[in-house]
């Protein structure tokens, strides 16, 4: 697996307390990777380490194949949390400056500035100075600078926090478009539904430590677990599906209305086929199926793990 980011036991301590504690994870190239954790879990610190702003006390990391001491600047972009730009310069000036610093020609910097300002709906405010930005505008400015050019890796720390639904939707679309253009996107968010919808992989950290990392499908159990709601109690339902090759376990709730089925991988058989076989077995046993839910929500998983 090609990885855009690889960390090996990175640790960051402040006053002897580990904010990031022996953290190891890999971000596959081309993925949209969610980085989750409760407040104070170490997400922002990890982002700052990956951007080269903070030096880890221990451990090592590679970003786009290069060590932290030699981060490939200009090939990566980020939305750093709490960073402010020059209060006296306009959005347009600041973005052009950053685009040129990123290696774009003056003409390209101008067109890219116009593009990203339009994308975050700030075209009308391009002459506004940094000091006059509202929180939302500042956030959108931060996102705009992260999308300048075609960076191979984009790190977004809480990109939709504080944005209205319309702007949040626009940002999600931009992230998808960036990933479709073969960029790797690492995104931290407290909006778990957003991460579940947007990302294909995720890591969950807590107290600076990795709790788990996996694909979203694995994290939510979408390829291993199904919850079937029955319209009426059916005692024979569980026994009817246990005999199936792909079924590991089948548990009926005490009210007889919810059947939780765990699957295992069977060569030559997809999860969809296994679910179809299960439904057929249930119908044959006389059960009436009301609703099917694959896996559980990322939020449920997150709450279980943290």
């Amino acid at each position: 697996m090609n990885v855009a980011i690889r960390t090996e036991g990175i640790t960051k301590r402040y006053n002897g307390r580990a904010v990031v504690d022996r953290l190891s994870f890999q971000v596959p190239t081309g993925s949209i990777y969610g980085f989750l954790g409760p407040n104070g879990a170490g997400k922002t610190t990890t982002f700052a380490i990956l951007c080269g702003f903070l030096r880890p006390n221990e451990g090592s990391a590679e970003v786009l194949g290069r060590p932290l001491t030699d981060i490939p600047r200009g090939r990566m972009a980020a939305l750093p949390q709490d960073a402010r730009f020059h209060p006296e310069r306009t959005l347009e000036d600041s973005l052009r400056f950053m685009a040129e610093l990123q290696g774009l020609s003056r003409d390209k910097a101008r067109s890219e500035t116009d593009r990203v300002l339009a994308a975050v709906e700030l075209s009308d405010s391009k002459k506004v100075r940094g000091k006059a930005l509202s929180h939302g505008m500042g956030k959108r400015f931060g996102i705009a600078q992260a999308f300048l050019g075609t960076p191979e890796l984009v790190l977004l720390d809480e990109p939709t926090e504080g944005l209205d639904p319309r702007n949040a939707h626009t940002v999600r679309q931009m992230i998808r478009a960036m990933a479709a253009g073969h960029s790797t996107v690492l995104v931290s968010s407290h909006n778990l539904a957003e991460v579940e919808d947007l990302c294909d992989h995720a890591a969950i950290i807590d107290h600076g430590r990795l709790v788990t990392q996996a694909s979203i499908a694995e994290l939510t159990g979408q390829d291993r677990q199904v919850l079937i709601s029955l319209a009426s109690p059916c005692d024979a339902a569980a026994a009817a599906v246990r005999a199936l090759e792909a079924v590991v376990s089948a548990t009926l709730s005490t009210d007889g209305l919810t059947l939780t089925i765990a699957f295992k991988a069977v060569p030559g058989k997809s999860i969809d086929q296994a679910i179809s076989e299960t439904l057929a077995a249930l119908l044959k046993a006389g059960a009436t199926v009301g609703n099917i839910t694959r896996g559980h929500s990322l939020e449920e998983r997150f709450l279980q793990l943290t």
Partner: protein
Amino acid sequence: MIPGTSKEGLVVHLLKDVWLIARFDLVTAIRTKRALLAILVYALGAFLTAAALVQIDAKIGDRLELVKSMANVSVPLKVEGQADQSTSVVKALSFLVGGDEDLVLHLLQIPLVVLGFFWTTLTFLPFLIALVSHDLVNIEVRNRSARFILLRTSRAALLLGKTVSHLLLFLSVTVVSNLVLCAYAWNASPSFDLWITSRLLLRFWLLTIPYGFCFLALTALVSSLVDGGAASLAANAIALIAISMLSMNDTIGLLSPSFYKLGLWSPRFLDVLGSSAAFLVFGTLFLSGAYARLRGRDL
């Protein structure tokens, strides 16, 4: 910056980034109160200096002319009274420049207005630099605006870019001040010689480059060591006073940049070159220290 594969490529990218940062920062300074403050303070200083020196020139100009003319006489002076007067003035002035009478005689050839203005520059420019640039590095760290820049370029480019920007600002300010000085002196002093004054001002302006660089680098170093705005201003002032006091010591004065200030006045080219080189060396050392601190710290 997409790093080049060769050392030359990296240097070219670094220089390009330094120029981009310097240009952006300079324009920012011009659009803010920072440049205005520097220009006002310096232009006011230039005006007051010029006004004072024109007045002094009008009052004791004749006596100085006499001393100058006597200093230029290669044969022994015959007029007893005038010789005494000349010697006493030269001795009095030589006290101010470490007892070097040759230097006094050289300085006497320089128009008083230019002399006074260069002295003012050498004395107050470090303090003006400290006042205006004390947060050269730490403001970028405090605001975390450095993070937007350092995603795209190196810490060395940031430090050098900011230093170049501020150096250009101060050199521009001294040019503006020189113009103010010339304009006033031309208008107020009948003996004012524009050609000689301009030539000397250009020379002294060129000498201001290594001198200003040295003290700007010192300010960058202090600014990278001390995080707070007011604290770095205070630390800068303390550093300048310490350097000034250190230069007065006969044994360890060599370790102070201020020790080499006098060489910039010298009639001997090698002395001027040596002093300029000393300022460049000190500046490079200070800037290296600032870089080492910036490179090793969290942002």
